[in-house]
């Protein structure tokens, strides 16, 4: 193990971390918002829209991010869509993540007892209010671990942005590996970084979880 390598490549790797975190944050937030919109459109939308959404979900969810990103970035110009690497990467992440988030939200809504929704309807509450005040808070109890799960998975999907030359962590790790052949050290750096990032996300997730389950009685 050659530790001097870390001194040499440290700044580059740190820059890569920064880019990864930026891409992940923006991508996750946008994908989650789009996913929620999709889940709602599928729940409340007219029938033809629901079919369209179903097709969107299955196609995006069913194909690898690598393929989507490759088509978007390298295939896009063939049909006149020319994006720079970073915007393409963020757009790609948003699209790729949205169906997963949509399904997780659908799962969560499934878990809300109908009686609670009926109680809100019975007093004439409007559907958007019911959603925000009753369904989302209750759905989060069951959906939050799955949301955190997928946010964590997205941190790892960002490595694919390296194929379109977004200078994120994998891109820099590859560079370090290719230039020095120190693949083991580079991989180790990658693993450590991810463990740190994921640990932070899980901790935040657990804290949020404690918040959304505050109303429940613990039985241990």
């Amino acid at each position, binding site marked *: 193990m050659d530790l001097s390598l870390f001194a040499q490549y440290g700044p580059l790797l740190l820059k890569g971390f920064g880019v990864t975190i930026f891409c992940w944050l923006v991508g996750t937030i946008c994908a989650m918002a789009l996913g929620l919109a999709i889940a709602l459109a599928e729940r409340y939308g007219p029938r033809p829209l629901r079919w369209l959404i179903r097709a969107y979900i299955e196609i995006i969810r069913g194909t690898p991010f690598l393929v989507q990103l*490759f088509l978007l*970035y*390298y*295939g*896009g*110009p*063939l049909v006149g869509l*020319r994006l720079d690497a970073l915007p393409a990467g963020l757009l790609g992440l948003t699209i790729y993540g949205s169906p997963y988030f949509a399904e997780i939200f659908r799962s969560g809504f499934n878990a809300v007892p109908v009686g609670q929704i009926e109680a809100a309807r019975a007093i004439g509450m409007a559907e958007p209010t019911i959603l925000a005040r009753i369904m989302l808070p209750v759905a989060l109890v069951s959906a939050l671990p799955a949301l955190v799960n997928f946010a964590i998975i997205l941190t790892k999907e960002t490595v694919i942005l*390296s*194929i*379109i*030359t977004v200078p994120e962590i994998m*891109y820099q790790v*590859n*560079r*370090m*590996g*290719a*230039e*020095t*052949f120190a*693949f*083991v050290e580079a*991989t180790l750096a990658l693993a450590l970084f991810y463990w740190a990032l994921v640990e932070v996300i899980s901790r935040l997730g657990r804290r949020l979880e404690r918040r959304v389950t505050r109303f429940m009685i613990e039985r241990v």
Partner: protein
Amino acid sequence: DQLADVKAAGKLELATDMHYAPFDMLNNGTYEGVTKDLFDEVAKDLGVTPNYMDVPWTAELPGLEAGKFDMVIAPVTITPERLQRYTFTLPIADATVGLVKAASNDAIQKPEDLAGKNVGVQQGTAQEKQLQAYGDKIGGIEIKGYGTADEAYADLAAGRLDAVAGSSPNLAYLVKNRGDVFAPVQPAFGAPTYFAWVLRKDDASKSLADAVNQSILKMHEDGRLKAIQEKWFGAATDLPTEVPQN
């Protein structure tokens, strides 16, 4: 002693990244290319059966060090830094830098035309270093690094790049296959560099490296090397008969 072990086992475990045409590629699921043709001969000389494994580039050298394979036969450009960490065999092909551009692009006729232009290259390669040096000489080139050469070619086709730099044999094969899209920029530039195979840098590996080198030398002499080069590149280049140290 690795040679003895290999002979005793009767087979050689070999790792290569099977998407680096024309050296290593999969055609309908069958492995073929320059490396395979060459190593089939080497194996015959050694009297062992070769077992070719497709392993992504990033896993090859760690796997070699972990003892999962005996050799990495993906073509690796010889550089002084790498020589410190691994044992290289004799060169098996030319790795000098070449350039391709989009066939439809008439603005670029010679390497000097690339001053100030976007040029793609596989990141971290010896070719990238040489391109950098060349760029400094002609007054600046915008270099973009890619994970693999394939992505650089795709971006050239997509129009984001003006040219791609790579090893000459690889580019020649690209142009041969996709002449409709890509065209070479002549002449090649930079110092001559070479591809070779890689073994662990320990005493036990020395015997095997020597045996492989013997076999390569034999192929130099009896013309098999030349024939294989002509088969894949259309022409043969002279290769040094000892491991270059720079």
